[in-house]
């Protein structure tokens, strides 16, 4: 469904530290800074970018919006959350753990706000293999 996701930053150095830590915690690579100064992460067929707003105004986070990342297992979700906390992120919602979803499904979820306040979620769908 998604071609890419882009989030705004007020300090790209701070954002790169934070997102490099998140992506390397889940087996990805540090971001690449493109010719426009944006930080680009390519991981498992998706593209995620962090940018200074092109209108020159401060970056602000949305109320109501969350970007959800697909992770492989609960250990990876915990690592993702810990890496975020250690690199300028703030926890939000309930601590990492199992949530009961509809139709008997279970999710292992963690939430963070990035250093600019953008809300992020890491999600693993629990299966019989977990």
């Amino acid at each position, binding site marked *: *469904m*998604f071609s890419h996701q*882009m*989030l*705004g930053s007020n300090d790209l150095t701070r954002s790169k530290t934070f997102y490099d830590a998140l992506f390397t915690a889940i087996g990805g690579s540090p971001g690449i800074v493109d010719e426009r100064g944006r930080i680009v992460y390519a991981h498992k067929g998706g593209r995620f970018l962090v940018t200074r707003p092109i209108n020159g105004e*401060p970056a602000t986070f949305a109320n109501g919006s969350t*970007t959800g*990342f697909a992770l492989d297992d609960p250990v990876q979700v915990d690592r993702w959350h810990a890496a975020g906390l250690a690199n300028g992120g703030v926890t939000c919602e309930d601590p990492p753990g199992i949530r009961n979803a509809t139709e008997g499904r279970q999710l292992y979820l963690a939430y963070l706000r990035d250093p600019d306040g953008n809300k992020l979620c890491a999600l693993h769908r629990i299966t019989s293999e977990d």
Partner: protein
Amino acid sequence: MFTHVMIGAKDLAESQRFYDATLGAIGASAGHNIGDRAFYSHNGGTLGIITPINGDEATPANGGTIGFAAPDKAAVDAWYAAGLANGGTSEGEPGKRPAAPGNAYGAYLRDPTGNKICSFCQLPAGE
């Protein structure tokens, strides 16, 4: 990389009309409403539109954009037209986007809440 993206809605019914039309233009089915939110699943990804759970009004980000993959140029054009016809505003007319990877063609809209979104496809070589 992405499981889902949630987008805040000031008016869920209005946003659902907008996303039914725009995502329908790129091949998704109509949203599944479950009270304070509605979900769209398409090609392995899920978009949720939601009235913010903190009770405050939904607000758009500055600097954030959600990009939707379209199958071809006609779908990008249809996505854009559907958005304008359903409460969206233009943030960039359909056209080639040489700064994006590959031979990209895309368009930009603001949804009825003001969230910035875009739709992109890859043109065949030479187009």
